């Protein structure tokens, strides 16, 4: 029971949030935190546990978002069906992209995932039924009033699901397989792990979560375009969220999502165009000084020293 206490408190807080946080702008930030936490957790399965630096995860996000809009516009399907179809399509895309790119290692893999995502972005930008650079209007999941709050409550189960998947991965045999692949693919193979299959499993789980998050994102922001839901920057952001919080940990991406979203929003109030610079600086600092992410801060020497000093004082 003690073990589940932090998760229980965290989700209770999220559920009760719309009751005491009435401001629409703040609610939207919280929604964004939830979506980014899902993205961070999903990316972490492939990038963290399996150690495969994917910089093309935005492809699945875009497929989810575009599915909701496209199926609504061309077949008049409601957004829920659009979401389901989006998840299915994203899994198919993951199957194709994964089976091609997982053959490559290291930087080659990272580059090929970017290429795959960029092909999708360019197609969305140039095809006529996606309306090119103009983008598309996505339908809302719930009618007004309080449509966004209801969508927020639809996003919470997704986060819970992502959290459950992460917890499972962290402790199960599957998770250990992935970590073995990250440490040394050849050795993992020698002890009977099939890297191709395990990596593909991780990617399918990851892509499904990311696509669902993309669909919900489209439902709330209601306007999507190649430069908002298919840009490489978003892939990097997913990696940054997981890195900032702590790769291959359950809570890391959640902490990363909270810190990054709140900090970026806070900064926006002062410096309109500074967010990209801020992300870059954060990424550099984390890589150089805190490669284990914020969850590893207690292991830093200065932290221990100052904690000891505080205790002594």
């Amino acid at each position: 029971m003690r073990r589940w206490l932090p998760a229980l408190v965290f989700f209770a807080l999220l559920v009760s949030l719309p009751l005491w946080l009435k401001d629409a702008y703040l609610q939207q930030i919280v929604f964004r935190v939830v979506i980014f936490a899902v993205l961070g957790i999903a990316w972490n399965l492939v990038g963290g546990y399996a150690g495969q630096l994917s910089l093309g995860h935005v492809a699945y996000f875009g497929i989810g978002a575009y599915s909701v809009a496209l199926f609504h516009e061309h077949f008049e399907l409601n957004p829920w069906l659009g979401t389901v179809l989006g998840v299915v399509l994203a899994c198919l895309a993951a199957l194709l992209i994964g089976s091609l790119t997982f053959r490559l290692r290291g930087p080659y893999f990272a580059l090929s995932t970017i290429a795959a995502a960029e092909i999708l972005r360019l197609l969305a930008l140039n095809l006529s039924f996606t309306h090119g650079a103009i983008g598309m209007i996505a339908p809302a999941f719930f009618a007004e009033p309080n449509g966004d709050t209801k969508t927020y409550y639809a996003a919470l189960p997704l986060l819970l699901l992502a959290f459950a998947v992460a917890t499972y991965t962290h402790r199960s045999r599957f998770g250990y397989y992935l970590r073995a692949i990250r440490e040394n693919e050849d050795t993992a193979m020698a002890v009977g792990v099939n890297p191709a299959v395990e990596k593909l499993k991780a990617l399918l789980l990851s892509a499904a979560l990311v696509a669902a998050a993309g669909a919900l994102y489209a439902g709330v922001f209601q306007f999507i375009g190649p430069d908002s839901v298919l840009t490489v920057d978003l892939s990097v952001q997913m990696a940054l969220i997981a890195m900032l919080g702590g790769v291959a940990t359950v809570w890391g991406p959640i902490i990363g999502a909270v810190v990054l979203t709140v900090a970026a929003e806070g900064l926006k109030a002062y410096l309109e165009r500074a967010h990209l610079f801020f992300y870059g600086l954060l990424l550099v600092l984390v890589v150089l000084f805190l490669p284990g992410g914020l969850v590893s801060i207690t292991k830093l020497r200065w932290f221990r020293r100052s904690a000891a000093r505080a205790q002594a004082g």
Partner: protein
Amino acid sequence: MAALQAILNGLLVGGIYALIAMGMALVFGVMRLVNFAHGAFLMVGMYLAYFGYTLFKLNPYWGFGLVGAALFLLGMGVYWLLVRRVMGQSDFLQILLTEGIALCLIGGAQLLFTGDYRSISLPLADKTANLGPLNFNVAYVVSFVIALLAVTSMYLFMKYTEMGRAIRGVAQNRLVAPLMGIRVQWISGVSFAFGVACAGAAGALLLPIFYVNPTIGGPYNLKSFVIVVLGGMGSVEGAALGGLILGVTEGLTAYYWSDSYTQVVDFVLFLAVLLLRPQGLLGKKAP
């Protein structure tokens, strides 16, 4: 004849691609580091050339050397301050670090210069020369010639100077190189700075024929990945050839299909080469 014109246009752009990609190939060959900030350094070079022209009337065709030198120093600084610390670590961290540097440069440019599109108009850029039925834009030709001269001198430098030999030595074997009296750290720094300088100089050569804004480097970054993979990762001569091939491919795609699908073809080509011939078009053995 129109197809020939398309090939010619592609070749002219390909010369500049060759210069950009050669810098990336050098960094990859010597340090096994994929520099995700390469395009961002190109953008910095373009801004330097832009302000050199608007503030000091410095023609980019003379100023590209200065821009290259400035970027060389910047590259040195970035290497000693940041990149050096992740050498020998996982490529996971290396890629994220250079991506972080790229975001800092792009974000910094947005803060300083806003996202506006800027361009200069050299009188040269409006001139065209004719050779039979073929048309040459003079600015493209000048950029192409300078880029090819830069590529050639780089090649000769690598082949015949002491420093070039040391760089190739480190690229061949990082462990044995220090036993031959080569200072690996120093050579790595110089190679990184050379790579950055190539991107910067290429940026200066692009300015007369293109516009600049903070995110302009992105496509060039991706294109140099494509070219470097085409030429075989780390092969400087391969990158030069890969640049020309990519330029011609783009020219033909634009002619036979559509201008907006050139990049799609780039990436399909890229994936195909990575999967079917990972050693590159010229390479002999798998890396």
